[in-house]
């Protein structure tokens, strides 16, 4: 069995990112779209940490960058859920197809 290389992690990350992207494009529930964005951010984190281990092992650049990605993702979930709750209070719906205020 061949050893695990950088390519394995890149492929895993690309597949996970694609699953997340498919969910973002095709889900009807706003919370589900938020969850799928989290999946995409996690796929990016796998990439960053794998590159950090295999390309710059002593610098920790990728690991520190992915800590910042986790921070931004946590802030994004908080604000996103607050926006969804505020919209639900006005529209009594979380179906993204109902949100057409900015359409003309």
């Amino acid at each position, binding site marked *: 069995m061949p050893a695990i290389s950088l390519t394995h992690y890149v492929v895993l990350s690309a597949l996970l990112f694609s699953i997340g992207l498919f969910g973002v494009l095709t889900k009807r529930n706003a919370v589900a779209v938020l969850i799928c964005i989290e999946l995409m951010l996690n796929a990016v984190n796998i990439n960053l940490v794998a590159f950090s281990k295999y390309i710059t*092992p002593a610098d920790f650049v990728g690991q520190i960058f992915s800590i910042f990605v986790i921070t931004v993702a946590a802030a994004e979930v908080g604000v996103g859920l607050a926006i969804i*709750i505020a919209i639900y209070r006005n529209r009594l719906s979380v179906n993204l197809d109902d949100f057409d205020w900015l359409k003309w």
Partner: protein
Amino acid sequence: METSIYSVIAFYGLAITILGNATLVIFARNIVHSVLFLAVTFIAMGGLFLLLDADFLAAVQVLVYAGAVCIMVVFGIMLIQRSDMKATNLFNRQTFAGAGLVALVVAMCAVFAGRTAWTDLVAAGEVPANTVQAIGELMLSKYVIPFEVAALLLLVALIGAIVIARDEEVKANAGN
């Protein structure tokens, strides 16, 4: 590089867990089940970080994602889904267009990953055993400004979330 058979088995086990549970997140019809599968995905990703010698990130992954984010999403769902949960996570009408676009993205990733000479990029060194100390020192020396900006971002997000989610009637009464 480590060539032990256990790390190979662990990678494939974790990869199958991550991809399988991520697929279940998309295809579960009940959104609470989706969040449950999401938590399993996040924990498996913490295992993957351990495999990549990033033990601090593995701990942060389990704490922030599997702990805080999943609980917060479940709370959000409980606040907005009043009726039954059976069919709360359905697909919209753009499923085939979305699948086509995703297939395009996968094909593009495959082309560019195939073109890149990964073996030339790989450095020979190993990740130091003590990652927490090194990350801590870098965070407070070289990356201190991004660190402070991230702290500020969290504060802004905290205040913004409270302001946005606040009830309009409470706001009106407070004004009187």
